[in-house]
């Protein structure tokens, strides 16, 4: 982040802020710096957008644990929108950060009662349960949420992860089946499904192999799936005490070649050496 940017036109700063906020891995200290600069120097120019900038200040300052800034931004927001649930949820997040989890659960329960379709609040409530280590409660709330918002793919993934932590791989698999149905061409869902099947145990290795190969038809250079194919087919072979059928052998050999090529092209020498060792291990 350069100082020049901050002294340039405010529109550029605003643009940069929006770019930063769309990133998957957000750098909250940058967001805080940009947003703070905007509200102190250009609040009038921003017009109605200033409130969104305040909102990002609240979230970013919480991540940097600078609660003083959070409180001052929140007071601006609640003065402007005294009845807003969105602001109320932000207040809840501050309570969460300070560790008042029982208080905040009450607040969210209250909002949930008044506005049963408020997604933000329901999601926050689930995270509070999760942070208190109440995974079962989180699962219950998440199931309730998904019965209302069945199309929320991220929520299905979260539910899946919670089931995995609770060792309920059957239900974890079910979550991914839902996702595969809604988006059959996404390789990521097949990949996760294959990994769950493999973890479930030997009865499910056939379907693990099936889904790993499906991933490879959708994304031929998926390293995880290539390793997965080799691992699964060898595991099946070891279990059934038979040599690989010619079709399976072709598949495994192809995966090995493909991996070698991909590693060689990447120019990572340590990686190449480790791959060689791994392949030798399987060949033994």
């Amino acid at each position, binding site marked *: 982040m350069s100082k020049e940017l901050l002294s340039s036109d405010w529109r550029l700063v605003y643009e940069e802020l929006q770019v930063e906020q769309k990133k998957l891995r957000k750098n909250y200290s940058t967001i805080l710096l940009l947003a703070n600069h905007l509200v102190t120097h250009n609040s009038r120019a921003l017009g109605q957008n200033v409130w969104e900038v305040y909102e990002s200040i609240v979230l970013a300052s919480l991540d940097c644990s600078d609660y003083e800034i959070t409180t001052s931004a929140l007071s601006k927001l609640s003065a402007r929108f005294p009845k807003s649930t969105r602001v109320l949820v932000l207040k809840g997040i501050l309570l969460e950060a300070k560790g008042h989890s029982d208080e905040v659960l009450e607040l969210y329960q209250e909002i949930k009662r008044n506005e049963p379709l408020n997604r933000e609040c329901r999601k926050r409530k689930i995270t509070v349960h*999760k*942070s*208190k*280590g109440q995974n079962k409660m989180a699962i219950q709330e998440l199931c309730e949420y998904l019965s209302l918002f069945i199309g929320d793919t991220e929520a299905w993934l979260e539910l899946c*992860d919670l089931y*995995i*932590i609770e*060792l309920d791989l059957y239900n974890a698999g079910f979550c991914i089946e839902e996702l595969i149905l809604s988006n059959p061409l996404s390789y990521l869902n097949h990949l*996760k499904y*294959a*990994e*769950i099947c*493999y*973890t479930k145990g030997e009865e499910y290795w056939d379907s*693990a192999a099936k889904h790993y190969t499906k991933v490879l038809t959708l994304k031929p250079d998926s*390293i*995880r799936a290539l*390793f*997965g194919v080799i*691992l*699964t087919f060898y595991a099946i072979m070891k279990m059934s005490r038979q040599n690989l059928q010619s079709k399976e052998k072709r598949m495994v050999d192809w995966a090995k070649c493909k991996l070698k090529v*991909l*590693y060689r092209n*990447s*120019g*990572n020498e*340590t*990686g190449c*050496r*480790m*791959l060689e*060792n*791994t392949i*030798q*291990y399987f060949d033994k």
Partner: protein
Amino acid sequence: MATTSIEISPTAYAKILSHILKYQHYTVNGLLIGNQNGDPLLIQDVYPLFHTGHGLSPMLEIALIQLDTTFSSEQTIIGYYHAFENCKQQSPDVHCERIMDKISEHFKQAILLLVDNHALTKIKEEGSKLPFHIFSRQDSSLRLASKAQIFSNESCISSQEVIEKKLYESCVDFDDHLEDTRLDWSNSKITELIVSKFS
């Protein structure tokens, strides 16, 4: 006999810290490499594993095979470190136990370093304790090894190095490596930097 004294090298410590700091919001784990017959047990190096998909086994098995076949008989996987995404969780879960079962098939005295998330706030202070709870396997279950002690000669300097120079941004774990094979999950860059600092 359970191990009672464990030494961790500055490189290994710096890598663990980098991994935790890079993926602060996730559950992260990794493998400890050391000498089988060392006394005190010395953690020489660390291979960071995952920050997603905790609890699924296929890629973990691949990582274990890769390391197992790479190291000579003397140097081997001597344990495992784990940091939960949840600050409050202070004891290993079923998945940690399973991984430890697997590691102790090869090395009986395997140790688990569970990261104490609260202690992480104080690591930069001189003379502070290392932020780990040590667990070891006793009678086929994981127990807190209350007598075991972990020490490092230069932990303070390596934590300053990691935090102030933002070394953690260059940390690569096996998850990253599987997404992009160009990335080196042995983190030789961090090794070089730390080693040059101490030589």
